[in-house]
């Protein structure tokens, strides 16, 4: 796979904002009375790599299935590639790639036949790319897919989703079954897609370390809604742990904007905020005559803090 040179990449983020490939508005979905998505809004700009984070059972798969028109929301609207997701045209599907959590392929067919069969559905199919990936990922092409391991099956499903070089690639826990080498290889492929500039990738995961390198945006799904959506760098800039030391006893609860968690013990406090500003630190310092030490948090720590109740 060759990578177009991105010397103009400085402006890529600005132009990418222009168009959304996915737009979800007020989407609610419940299964036998159990609410999963709750009036969820989510809009994904073209050309971004979005990591969708959420705990097990948070509803990541449901969100992606609603996004793709594979599940029908109880309420709300989903717009995908400019069309209603539920009534997606065959033409729009040509530009869509999807790998579900447990890919279902045709167990009686050989790998090479599954590839040829899938290719026949698409107007555009990059055979060289597919052959390269099959070789790189050591997928045994003469084997029946029913005899493949979970990891091999996931790699094959990825290849099938990449063959037609989709405009939007949606991956549900794409690396769950991959070993570290295959995972690294997979992330490399996603980065190559990202370097192209105008293709969009949405992938769900609960493994934060995969997200750190590859995603430029992160969406946090919590309580049925997207609680945070923004650049990964901005998230790290805004969510901070403050270690506060005051000469006087601190109040039991410290009121702060964007407070996620706090632990106050006498003259010391450890608080996490999701809205750090230079003014905030100053404010705490004057109010409590305190010294404040700002601690950086990595994505895993941020994820844990976001899931703590203050």
């Amino acid at each position, binding site marked *: 796979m060759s*990578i177009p*040179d*991105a*010397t103009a*990449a*400085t402006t*890529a*983020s600005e132009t990418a904002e222009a168009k959304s490939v996915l737009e979800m508005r007020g989407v609610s979905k419940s299964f036998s009375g159990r609410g999963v998505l709750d009036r969820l809004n989510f809009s994904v700009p073209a050309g*971004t*790599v979005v990591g969708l984070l959420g705990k097990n059972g948070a509803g990541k798969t449901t969100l992606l299935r609603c996004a793709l028109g594979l599940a029908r929301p109880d309420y709300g609207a989903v717009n995908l590639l400019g069309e209603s997701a539920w009534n997606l045209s065959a033409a729009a599907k040509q530009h869509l790639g999807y790998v579900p959590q447990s890919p279902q392929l045709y167990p009686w067919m050989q790998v090479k036949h599954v590839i040829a069969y899938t290719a026949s559905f698409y107007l555009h199919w990059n055979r060289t790319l597919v052959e390269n990936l099959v070789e790189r990922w050591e997928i045994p092409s003469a084997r029946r897919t029913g005899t493949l391991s979970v990891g091999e099956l996931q790699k094959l499903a990825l290849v099938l989703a990449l063959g037609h070089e989709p405009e939007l690639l949606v991956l549900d826990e794409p690396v769950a079954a991959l070993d570290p080498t295959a995972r*690294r290889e997979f*992330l*490399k492929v996603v*980065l*190559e897609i*990202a*370097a192209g*500039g105008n293709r969009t990738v949405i992938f769900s995961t609960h493994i934060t*370390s995969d997200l*750190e*390198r*590859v*995603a*430029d945006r992160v969406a946090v799904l919590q309580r049925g809604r997207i609680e945070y959506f923004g*650049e*990964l*760098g*901005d998230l*790290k*800039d805004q969510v901070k742990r403050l270690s506060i030391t005051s000469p006087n006893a601190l109040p039991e609860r410290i009121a702060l904007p964007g407070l996620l968690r706090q632990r106050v013990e006498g003259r010391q406090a450890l608080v996490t905020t999701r809205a750090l500003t*230079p*003014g905030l*630190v*100053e404010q705490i*310092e*004057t109010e409590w005559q305190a*010294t*404040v*030490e700002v*601690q*950086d*948090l*990595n*994505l*895993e*720590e941020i994820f844990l803090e976001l899931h703590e109740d203050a």
Partner: protein
Amino acid sequence: MAADFLFQVFPNSGLPLYRQISDQVRRHVASSRLAPGDFLPSVRQVALELQVNPMTVSKAYSLLERDGVVELARGQGMRVAQRNGAGDNVVERQERLVPAVEQLLAEAYQLSLTPRQVQSLVARIIKEREAR
């Protein structure tokens, strides 16, 4: 110049990747490992070398451009900014302020002010000046 030679990133650190990259460029410029006129490796090169999203690299470069550390040479990429009218680039001019800052910190120490308190004082004064 090979990108891996110039940069190193730690994705699991709490410091955003774009800051890690821009900080490293600043340091290389301050230490003259990068001289005015030197080109930075392309966004794509750095992204593939470090295995990070190209947007991250491009954000770091934009930040450096905004601060005048590097400049965009049309069609050629980013190069370390030439010494401008004031004599040196931003980092070097900052270096010249170091003695004054040391003096400030010494006096702050005498007044039992913590570094953080000094920082917020400086921030406040800057804000007040900007408001004028």
